[in-house]
């Protein structure tokens, strides 16, 4: 419970920044996610005669992460429906908190990508909300990681999803979680290491890949969900490395649907795919009992 409230606190600076740069429309989407996730959990638990556990904060975290993982162009109802689906199908169907196979926020986001693909675009520029391409779209089109100042990406002055714009504030929030020992730091460490190595091998600036898309929010806040990530250190390293690898492969070779949507980022697919391997990683890397 403490951890979930810690997570909410850690995400708050980035959420406030997004409201500042994108305006009240960002707040509407964040609230749509949080309210729908909490309401879906409460209604489902009431209907199935379970103890209502919305006070533990996990549904609010799911809603907040999902609200922050959509573009400002997305209608609020798409966020609400996706958050409710993530909570019910991704979490409650298997018995609720701690029994889920997939990260509910990411499961909701996959649902959003599938059901509302035409509501993702266009991406908007902070402040003036002009239509703009994300740094990763620029990379896909030009084949070069140059052109977008790294400092702007780091501070949060680039187009993208509501919550991914400010890497700086996300990293400050993540540092708080590490300081309080609320998250498994090995997962993002492994993910960032793989991204670093692959970027260097490709001859690109690794900082571009760190701050361009949703790597920071994905690796630091979504992949570290304690219920859907490996329990043991070696498993966490492999899990994180897998997340980093899939993200980079999606950035370079992601699916393209001309005129509809081009997948230049793969955090959702990376986290959900690696979630499938968690039971195996927990079995394989369980430390031997001490004698």
């Amino acid at each position: 419970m403490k951890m979930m409230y810690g997570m909410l606190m850690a995400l708050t600076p980035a959420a406030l920044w997004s409201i500042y740069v994108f305006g009240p429309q960002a707040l509407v989407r964040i609230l749509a996610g949080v309210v729908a996730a909490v309401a879906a959990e409460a209604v489902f638990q009431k209907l199935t005669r379970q103890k209502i556990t919305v006070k533990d904060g996990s549904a609010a975290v799911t809603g907040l992460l999902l609200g922050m993982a959509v573009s400002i162009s997305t209608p609020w109802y798409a966020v609400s429906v996706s958050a409710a689906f993530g909570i019910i199908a991704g979490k409650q169907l298997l018995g609720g908190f701690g029994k889920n196979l997939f990260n509910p926020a990411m499961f909701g986001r996959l649902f959003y990508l599938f059901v509302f693909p035409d509501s993702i675009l266009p991406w908007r520029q902070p402040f003036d909300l002009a239509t703009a391409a994300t740094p990763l779209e620029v990379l896909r089109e030009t084949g070069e990681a140059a052109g977008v100042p790294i400092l702007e990406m780091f501070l949060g002055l680039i187009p993208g999803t509501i919550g991914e714009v400010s890497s700086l504030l996300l990293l400050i929030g993540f540092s708080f979680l590490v300081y309080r020992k609320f998250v498994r730091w090995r997962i993002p460490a492994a993910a960032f290491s793989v991204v670093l190595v692959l970027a260097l091998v490709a001859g690109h600036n690794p900082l571009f890949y760190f701050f361009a898309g949703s790597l920071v929010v994905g690796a630091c806040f979504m992949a570290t969900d304690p219920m859907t990530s490996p329990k043991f250190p070696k498993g966490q390293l492999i899990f994180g490395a897998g997340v980093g690898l899939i993200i980079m492969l999606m950035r370079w070779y992601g699916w393209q649907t001309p005129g509809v949507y081009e997948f230049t980022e793969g955090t959702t697919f990376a986290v959900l795919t690696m979630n499938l391997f968690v039971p195996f990683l927990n079995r394989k890397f369980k430390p031997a009992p001490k004698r």
Partner: protein
Amino acid sequence: MPESSIIRFLSVMAVMLVVGFGWFQIGLARLKKQGVDESAARTQAKQEAKKYSIIAAFLYMVAMVSVAGLFL
């Protein structure tokens, strides 16, 4: 909500229901064959069915998103 979104939403539900009910029947028969008590077998089969229906929904959505040009 656009009509295409409603169709996609219903298609995910359909996949989950078909896989869930199908897996429940298969799992129940398998567990009964193993000599598991009826009520315990039902509970276990139900849990397995939910798990595999969610995995099926994941695979279905990823597959459809990856071939979105054909589907949309």
